[in-house]
């Protein structure tokens, strides 16, 4: 599923604990069996024979530095290439000879939510299907032909495609499917980094086990299709960025490999928006400088990029040359946790906006408490009705996962940000820079109070776990009652992410 914001903030650590061992993974996979309606057709990638080509012998960059594997803006900008074929420009890796190069496999589930809905109900197959409430979380490829894309308002989507079928979505179902797919990935790769609808598999050093890695990817695609009925697009490359970009060229249901030796040439013609770390804002800046491709970006020195974009500029300098040293790692803790929504009607009513911020802070804080972490940095993001947006972040003196502390800073940021005389279309809250939670640290004489506050929020979380988040609504958020729809999870947020 592409272009969606469901991974916004990379907030869903899809990994979960296997519980009680009553049924093993293999048992579960076996009991589920292949999807009944899915015929075991060759995946489109399956039949191709890799043509011989140059050996993979180039080294990857050794520059340090980590980067987020794809920010929301980057995903939203991800264009839809609907070609479907196998791209293999390399001969099988020969692990026995020469230096071992890194190999990363990027697995992206095609039109994730919509594909599942089409599978659950065959009457939807071949029809334009939208999953989302308020905005599109995911849409089928049939819908994309009408120009629909994730993040688009449903009203706009219905205008472009009046006969589209809109489904609210079933986050729990999607999580289950994703877990099944990621379990298959874990069966072939020692390290798998998962997001809502995509995974990076580190296959470095597994050539002796798998043989040709392209064959391993083919088998993985086939297994996933047999097990879930879903198609995935796979990209194989010497680093995360190249692997992801390779997959983008063969969506949906494709398989492509770009070797280290080809990375430089492969990246050169990519639009700058496709480079990890370049979101809407950076792309706009670059376009204003008439820089549209990675090749054109190379004309800028590292110093110039640092001056333009700050420290990440140095990473961009490397990435536009096909070099990315971010490693695949299993994440227990997300990079960010965000909660955001569009208002049902654009609003400049401070009471309503502050109420929504309080509600979002409650939802986000509950999530980070469940993860056992506390954010140090809080950001507030405002989207104005005229399309402009602004975001500002600030750090807390002490990391905290309690609602009032986070909310106080969020309200400060909001007061500083909301200066234009334009109604707001949406508001969001992003928590980041996490540290493991020990005890809530208060001032020297406030520790008892801090302990009581932590106990109070643990009790809140227990009640909400049993009866839904919406059963307890506090302070300013009470103003939202009657204005917003509610379900068992609380107020219904109009967000591209169904899991938030």
């Amino acid at each position: 599923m592409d272009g969606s914001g469901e991974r916004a903030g990379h907030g869903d650590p899809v990994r979960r604990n296997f519980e009680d061992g009553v049924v093993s993974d293999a048992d579960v996979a076996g009991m589920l069996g292949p999807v009944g309606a899915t015929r075991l057709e060759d995946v489109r990638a399956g039949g191709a024979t890799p043509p011989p080509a140059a050996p993979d012998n180039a080294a990857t960059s050794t520059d340090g530095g980590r980067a987020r594997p794809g920010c929301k803006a980057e995903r939203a900008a991800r264009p839809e290439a609907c070609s479907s074929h196998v791209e293999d420009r390399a001969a099988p890796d020969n692990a026995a000879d020469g230096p071992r190069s890194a190999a990363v496999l990027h697995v992206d589930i095609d039109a994730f939510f919509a594909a599942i809905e089409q599978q659950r109900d065959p009457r939807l197959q071949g029809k334009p299907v939208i999953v989302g409430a308020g905005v599109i979380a995911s849409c089928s490829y049939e819908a994309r032909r009408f120009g629909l894309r994730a993040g688009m308002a449903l009203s706009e989507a219905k205008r472009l495609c009046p006969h589209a079928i809109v489904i609210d979505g079933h986050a729990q179902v999607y999580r289950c499917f994703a877990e099944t797919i990621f379990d298959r990935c874990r069966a072939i790769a020692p390290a798998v980094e998962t997001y809502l609808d995509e995974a990076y598999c580190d296959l470095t050093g597994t050539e002796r086990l798998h043989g040709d890695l392209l064959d391993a990817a083919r088998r993985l695609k086939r297994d996933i299709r047999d097990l879930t009925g879903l198609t995935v697009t796979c990209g194989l490359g010497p680093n995360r960025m190249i692997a992801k970009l390779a997959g983008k060229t063969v969506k949906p249901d494709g398989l492509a490999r770009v070797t280290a030796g080809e990375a430089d040439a492969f990246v050169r013609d990519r639009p700058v928006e496709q480079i990890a770390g370049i979101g809407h804002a950076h792309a706009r800046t670059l376009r204003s400088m008439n820089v549209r491709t990675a090749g054109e970006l190379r004309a800028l020195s590292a110093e110039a990029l640092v001056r333009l974009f700050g420290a990440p500029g140095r990473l961009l300098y490397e990435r536009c040359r096909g070099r990315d040293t971010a490693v695949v790692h299993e994440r227990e803790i997300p990079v960010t946790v965000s909660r955001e929504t569009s208002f049902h009607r654009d609003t400049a009513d401070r009471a309503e906006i502050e109420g929504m911020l309080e509600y979002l802070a409650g939802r986000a804080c509950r999530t980070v408490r469940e993860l056992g972490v506390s954010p140090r940095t809080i950001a507030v993001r405002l989207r104005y009705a005229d399309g402009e947006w602004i975001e500002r972040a600030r750090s807390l003196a002490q990391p905290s996962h309690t609602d009032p502390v986070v909310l106080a800073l969020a309200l400060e940021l909001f007061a500083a940000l909301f200066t234009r005389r334009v109604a707001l279309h949406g508001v969001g809250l992003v928590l980041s820079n996490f540290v493991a939670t020990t005890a809530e640290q208060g001032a020297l004489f406030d520790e008892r109070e801090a302990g009581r506050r932590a106990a109070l929020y643990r009790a809140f979380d227990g009640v909400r776990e049993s009866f839904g988040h919406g059963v307890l609504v506090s302070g300013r958020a009470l103003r939202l009652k009657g204005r917003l729809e509610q379900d068992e999870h609380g107020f219904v947020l109009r967000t591209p992410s169904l899991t938030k």
Partner: protein
Amino acid sequence: MRQETIDEAVTVRADFQGGVVTPVAFRLRGREQRITRVNARWVDRVPRHPHWYFSVTVDTGDVYQLQLQAGDMVWWLDTVALEG
């Protein structure tokens, strides 16, 4: 397309051959619904015992969601998706 919640325990005839569970028919309000197609299967392993889910089409053309809870091996009929 609209979905209606049923949320009832139901009697299901199922095939467990080869260790793979496949619902064949279920009884809803005294009437047997023959399953003509299993559209999708998935498992939720977050609960203490796994829950298996099945999206099935019955002979009338309606699409139901069935659930088998591994803890007590009780079948539930969750929802029906209706056209229109």
